[in-house]
């Protein structure tokens, strides 16, 4: 794994006195290129969802009633909390408190597992009610958007595992890799925020 020394030292300086607008991104710029491209892809999914929704708003409202708002909110709170823990991990690693940082990632990972477990529970409840992927247009999008998001969470587990691996041993501990992982995880978080609003709450 690469760990450009220059980027780490500028980071450390940043913790003491962050220069506003100095222009440092969290982690590798390459990960940001990925985040922006994912934003484009998800924007197209969201817009297509909305166009379909407006073709038959009644159907979407009737189907939406079958979703559990409470489970949706629980998922959102779990996701937001995991994101917060990850931000704390980045800060702790920056301050060289690697024990704490490592604990935060493990907690983030735990939140991620809880998120997926809740999602799978929710899907199996819907499937038992006879509401499957091919039930109607709303459920296409419900399963598709939540499904593709869960796939991103699963990829996130690999990313977080890499971060844990980095933090565990003094030979590694690349701040850049920790931050790159955090960038990915936060992306998964803010995409969920939009999915929650569009699929569960809007009318």
């Amino acid at each position, binding site marked *: 794994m690469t760990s450009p020394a220059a980027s780490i030292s500028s980071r450390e300086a940043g913790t003491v006195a962050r220069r506003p607008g100095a222009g440092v991104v969290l982690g590798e710029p*390459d990960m940001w290129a*990925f985040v922006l491209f*994912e934003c484009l892809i998800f924007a197209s999914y969201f817009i*297509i969802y909305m166009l*379909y929704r407006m073709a038959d708003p009644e159907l979407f409202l009737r189907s939406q009633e079958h979703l559990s708002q409470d489970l949706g909110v629980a998922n959102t709170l779990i996701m937001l909390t995991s994101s917060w823990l990850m931000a704390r991990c980045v800060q702790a690693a920056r301050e060289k408190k690697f024990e704490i940082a490592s604990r935060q990632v493990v907690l983030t990972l735990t939140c991620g597992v809880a998120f997926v477990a809740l999602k799978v529970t929710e899907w199996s409840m819907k499937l038992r009610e006879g509401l499957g992927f091919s039930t109607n247009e709303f459920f*296409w999008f419900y399963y598709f958007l939540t499904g593709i998001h869960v*796939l991103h969470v699963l990829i996130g587990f690999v990313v977080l595992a890499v971060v844990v691996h980095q933090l565990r041993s003094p030979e590694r501990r690349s701040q850049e890799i920790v931050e790159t992982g955090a960038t990915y995880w936060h992306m998964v978080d803010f995409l969920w925020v939009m999915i929650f609003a569009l699929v569960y709450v809007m009318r």
Partner: protein
Amino acid sequence: MSAAVADHTRARPSGFLGRIAWHWRHDPKIELWICWWVMVSFYQLFGIVFVLMTRVMPPPRPDWDQARIVQWFSDNHTGLLVGFGIIFLVAGMTASSNAIIGYSMRRMSVSRAFAYSYIAIYSLSAIPGMLFAGILLSVGAMRPDRDPRLLAWLYDAGFLTFVGTMGVFLIGTLVWMIAILIDKNRVFPRWFGYLNICNLLTEFVVAPCWIMKTGAFAWNGSIAFWVDTGVFVVYTTAFIVLLRRMVIREDFGDGPLPDPS
């Protein structure tokens, strides 16, 4: 060696054919350039045949009745047969793209297993990915008077194998992605490694085409076809440009070849 360099750089001609002839005779990277150009030509040809000649991209609707499907085969009779004839003829060009991508992995600080598994996976990818579609749709087009039920089956089978071949490209992309991300030689920038995730996810997104006959997730759907194809075009363009840079960066010098034994 420096004498040799001076000798043939002086002789480098300016005309188009002259330049090609010079590269053929003197360019130490000629094999890589041949593979790169064959790859580029293949994707151009693929676009022309699938979009303009056979009208298979963008795909027609999966929910047509048999009469409309028969109509589609007869509307596109010549385009399908000649277009797929071209594809059958040039199918092997895909191998040069796999070869240069495999070679890119040999330049990385990863095991040879990566290059070999990529080449092995992709050596057969053209068959489910486009040749089955070509065979089935050609067989449909060659006898417009065939029983409409059979034509409708050929139509379904042709498009589903074309759009719905997932695993080959999923695992192939995964292998390349892992190689790029753990490579210490930075043969490819890391953003391209991450872009592989996007391409890999399209293979999940396309899966509902096996279930849906209308809407965003059918084989002609706005998500299963259009968004996925958009991602694929960005991805393909990116790796064509990056492979070109890789070839330019290669520095073999032009001295004598290493002893093969």
